[in-house]
């Protein structure tokens, strides 16, 4: 008797996986295809999954890899090194008060506009509340890279958010 069936483990992740897929693909139909394919692939590979290791990270990793090999995934992967560096060297002065007043839609827009690698790590950390270790597993990067990328992602989002608030009219 197996400890848990695939459905028992996989179906509770459905909403989270869909949200993440939609953010990655920026399109509802493509998000559905991604989720469907993720479940199919995961079910097929379930026998190779080791019970006791992190199932959620495994599923997110399959979803992400599926996206990266898809057509729109290939287009989005170019890591915007320039943007990252520009952000790292021009830390804006703390304007916490302004940022606090940003409404959800403004934060969403800012999140849509940061580079894809930044967006996905922010979603995994803040929305999925994954540990650094889980994120490392999903993105297949070392823990140190998780921390530095997260740091730069937050900085990028913050400066994008400040720009949006200052330019209005959806800002304040």
């Amino acid at each position, binding site marked *: 008797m197996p400890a848990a*069936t*695939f*459905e*028992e483990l*996989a*179906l*509770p992740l*459905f*909403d989270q996986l*869909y*949200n993440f897929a*939609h*953010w990655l693909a920026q399109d*509802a139909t493509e*998000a*559905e295809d991604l*989720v*469907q394919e993720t*479940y*199919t692939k995961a*079910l097929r590979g379930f026998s190779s999954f080791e019970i006791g290791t992190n199932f959620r990270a495994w599923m997110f990793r399959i979803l992400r890899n599926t996206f990266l090999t898809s057509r729109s995934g290939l287009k989005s992967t170019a890591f915007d090194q320039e943007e990252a560096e520009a952000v790292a060297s021009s830390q804006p002065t*703390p304007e*916490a008060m302004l*940022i*606090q007043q*940003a409404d*959800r*839609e403004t*934060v*969403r827009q800012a*999140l849509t506009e940061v580079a894809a690698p930044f967006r996905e790590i*922010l*979603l995994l*950390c*803040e*929305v999925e*509340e994954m*540990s*650094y270790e889980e994120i490392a597993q999903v993105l297949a990067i070392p823990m140190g890279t998780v*921390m530095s990328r*997260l*740091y730069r992602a*937050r900085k990028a*989002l*913050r400066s994008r958010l400040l720009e949006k608030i200052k330019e209005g009219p959806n800002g304040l």
Partner: protein
Amino acid sequence: MACDAWQEKLDAYVDGELPSSDAATLARHLRECAACAAEALDRVQMKRAVAMAGKRYEPSAQFREKVRQSLGKSRRREGAWVWRIVALPATLVLVLSLAVGLYVDHEKTQRHRVYSELTDLHVATLASASPVDVISTDRHTVKPWFQGKIPFSFNLPELQGTDFTLVGGRVTYLAQSPGAHLIYRLRQHEISVFIFQDRGDETAALASSPISMLSFNVESWTKNGLRYFVVGDVGAQDVESLSKLLRDAG
């Protein structure tokens, strides 16, 4: 340790990734250092904003059903006929347990969201230069001050003979609805009491006995159509005794 060194650790701290010994030392530092506390609060608020903004897309019911069915189909193909006999009850159990699981998960998330918002309000208020808009230890001054500012009225307890003192109050908002935020003091600690109109569905999952949340103790209950929250970094017992005073007053 100097503030610069702490600031490097703030991200890991708010992400819950700092080793517990470091986290405890940093938490002590945050109580004493306004600059670092403001930085920490800023990060927490940013995290919360992203968490809320990021939960954006929901799958359609049809699509959910489609995936569920596709999983069922592939399982049926694999199974021998005997499985069909056990499949129905097993599916029922599975569906039920999933439904319960999803419900519990949802409740947990909901509770987590409400409580983090309240602890944020608590911390943000205490960090502000003027935490209360009506400053008085007299409940007969504080209570009428709210008249016309919020769409309900409430009773506050007599504190004589207890260790609690009333500091004052202000109008606050939770999920766009106005409420009263009262601050009480116990020894060197400030405790927040939040009162809102009860909206059953939103807050049904909230615990009636104190629970620990980000090292704050929180207790919540409803009475006479109002939802009360007590939030503070004092012990669970103290939160409970202030809650009892408030319950008895209403």
